[in-house]
């Protein structure tokens, strides 16, 4: 069949290769080295294609599924360094499988729910493993994994009233969040707290008072967001900042043109994938952290500049990203990777596939358009750009939790502040029964 030429053909022209202008530095040497390894991948694929014709870049579904299923069950002792991140391991595997269209068996799902139950603490939140202190990151991972599983047992496992107490205890006076008791404080804390609070409908006005202003202190002069005020713009933290702002309905505070420019510039012109920071190297996981910014930005811009927005595409090169992922980031033994030469791991498998899903699915209010590189069955299920769980899972979990009342805070100061959480995706929002209309957590109150 006649097809458009693959984007990666550009490597045969050598035009987009990095030039160091006679000034060789650590950064330029590293960049040139990565381009060479990427060129090898693209060239050997193109040479094969020239020889035997039709084969389009293929997603090795079977291998990745086997890799993920194995990981979800048991891991070698090399994973000891992730012993305080086990809910993460669960989420990475479960979400990647979800994207690949794999439903867990009843037993597998029950096993996950039961294990995450062991990680949930009586004082609220989830720890990195059974018996570990509650921490916002595994709390986020556990809630997302349970939302993906989506059964009543999974959703009901989350103790919402202790969860909100845990979130409240992590909050600082200025509205930022610590990761755990006595732990570090950065924009991940804000995102994890906002995300789980929105998903499970426990957000109140007082819980996130001033949080948006703290987030805004993290937008750097480059346009992206940093982990803490004053730091360098960074892909992971930018996603946290923008998603949290959006979930708090305060995206109007963000300097959107600067953010858009920064985000667009993170796509590598030679490799096709994204880098995390200016002048750093391409890395598969930023396919989601950076790529995931574009659907959010598109939604934001639709509110002020809809006439000029494309109705067909995100503002990055969706084909180039997919080619990078398909041709440079699939490990022969299953799982996906950061860049050629690296070993696969569950984190990169999860975020490369999440980024691929974003690149495949364009959605605006008016239309849904799929843009799949390679054979049709490369298509993944669409992911929700703010939570990074499947769209369907996010919608049904939101419906379920929005039908429940927002837990009333036990601390006296916040007793009157419980309000209903409004979902950004405009999934069925149901007004809660436990709150007075005057104190609902609506947009105008949160954004002041």
């Amino acid at each position: 069949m006649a097809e458009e030429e693959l984007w990666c053909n550009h490597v045969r022209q050598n035009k987009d290769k990095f030039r160091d202008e006679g000034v060789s530095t650590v950064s330029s040497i590293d960049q040139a080295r990565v381009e060479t390894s990427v060129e090898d991948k693209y060239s050997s694929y193109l040479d094969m294609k020239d020889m035997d014709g039709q084969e389009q870049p293929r997603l090795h579904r079977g291998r990745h599924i086997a890799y993920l299923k194995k990981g979800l069950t048991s891991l070698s002792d090399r994973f000891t360094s992730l012993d305080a991140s086990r809910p993460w391991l669960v989420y990475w595997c479960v979400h990647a499988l979800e994207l690949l269209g794999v439903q867990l068996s009843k037993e597998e799902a029950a096993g996950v729910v039961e294990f995450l139950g062991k990680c949930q603490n009586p004082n609220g939140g989830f720890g990195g493993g059974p018996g570990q202190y509650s921490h916002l990151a595994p709390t986020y991972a556990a809630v997302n994994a349970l939302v993906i599983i989506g059964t009543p047992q999974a959703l009901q496992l989350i103790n919402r009233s202790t969860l909100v107490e845990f979130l409240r205890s992590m909050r600082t006076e200025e509205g930022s969040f610590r990761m755990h008791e006595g732990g570090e404080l950065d924009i991940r804390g804000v995102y994890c707290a906002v995300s789980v609070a929105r998903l499970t409908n426990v957000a109140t006005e007082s819980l996130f008072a001033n949080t948006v202003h703290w987030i805004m202190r993290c937008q750097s002069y480059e346009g992206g967001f940093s982990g803490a005020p004053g730091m360098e713009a960074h892909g992971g933290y930018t996603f946290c900042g923008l998603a949290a702002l959006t979930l708090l309905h305060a995206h109007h505070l963000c300097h959107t043109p600067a953010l858009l420019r920064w985000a667009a510039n993170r796509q590598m012109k030679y490799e096709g994938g994204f880098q995390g920071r200016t002048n750093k190297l391409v890395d598969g996981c930023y396919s989601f952290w950076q790529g995931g910014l574009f659907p959010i930005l598109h939604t934001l811009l639709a509110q002020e500049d809809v006439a000029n927005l494309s109705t067909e595409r995100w503002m990055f090169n969706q084909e180039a990203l997919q080619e990078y992922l398909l041709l440079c980031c699939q490990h022969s033994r299953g799982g996906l990777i950061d860049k050629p030469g690296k070993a696969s791991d569950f984190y990169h498998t999860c975020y490369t596939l999440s980024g691929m899903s974003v690149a495949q699915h364009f959605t605006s209010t008016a239309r849904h358009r799929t843009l799949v590189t390679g054979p049709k069955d490369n298509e993944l299920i669409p992911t929700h750009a703010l939570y990074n769980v499947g769209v369907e899972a996010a919608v049904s979990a939101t419906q379920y939790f929005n039908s429940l009342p927002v837990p009333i805070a036990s601390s006296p100061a916040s007793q009157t502040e419980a309000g209903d959480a409004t979902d950004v995706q405009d999934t069925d929002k149901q007004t809660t029964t436990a709150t007075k209309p005057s104190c609902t957590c609506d947009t105008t109150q949160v954004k002041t």
Partner: protein
Amino acid sequence: MREAQIQLRVMCSNDDEYVSEEDVWVLYKDREEWADVTPLTQDDGPNAVVKIAYTDAFTDVYDYFRAVVASGEMSERALELTEDAINMNAANYTVWQYRRKILKHLGSDLKKELAFCREMIEMNPKNYQVWHHRRVIVDWLKDASKELRLTEMIFSQDAKNYHAWEYRQWVLRTFKLFDGELDYVDRLLEEDVRNNSAWNQRHFTITQTTGFTPDVIQREVHYVKKAIEKVVNNESPWSYLRGVVQHCDGRMGSVGDLENWCRQMYEGGQRSPYLLTFIIDLMEDKMEHEPDLRPSVLKHCLQICICLATEHDQIRQEYWRYIGRNLSHRFGA
């Protein structure tokens, strides 16, 4: 036990199944001084998922750690136990937090703790817990005399280590140690003019000290122009330049003769996308302030957008098309 610990560290940092040849490691369950404690196994449940095949030594140490936390023991031996637990997994924040509780409770020698923490940082420079621990201890000690040098040692291996930069910024701010920071940034940029972390640090340092006064803006524009003249196709200084001129009261092009400077490069045949982008910014600024010039400037602007989309920055084609539409919408007739 010292030697055993070093062995163990080798084992962990290689993350290989390296087994110590000398059998110096004694499991806690075989140690007389721990005979009074009943180890507490991890409650994974019968159908655990993501089950890690721990080594016996790991399970043993963590069984005792759990027992200690459960009983609330805060002793010297418990402190040593946390050190072993950290050596086996430096990312276990629960252990670090419990260790801090013990340190506080015992009134331990924090200088010694800093030495331990330094070793941990050297072995795990990209771990959140080690840097946070250092911050807490230095905050308790109120002594940051060794801290800048520590980060410099880390930067000598990886000049873009995010954790180290975040820590350095905290030290600079908390202990007001900004003297000499711009010189340090200079040296890093001298080594690698593409080091974006160093450019960011330059911005941070100025924000925290003099601020972007008119004099400082002049000086910085001069500095950044030099850097760009050295390597044009380097996004970092272009971004920084934009960050600096944002602080101008007046027009973007009014400082440092940027408009002419850009035009000269352009006329000299330079087509770096960063130069072209900056030219668009200058023109946008002009259209904002001089409505009369809009028609001619807009035309030129849109031409550059097309060149970027189709030739000099093709990968960002969608972006440049959007920018073109947005500009015509705002400044067109």
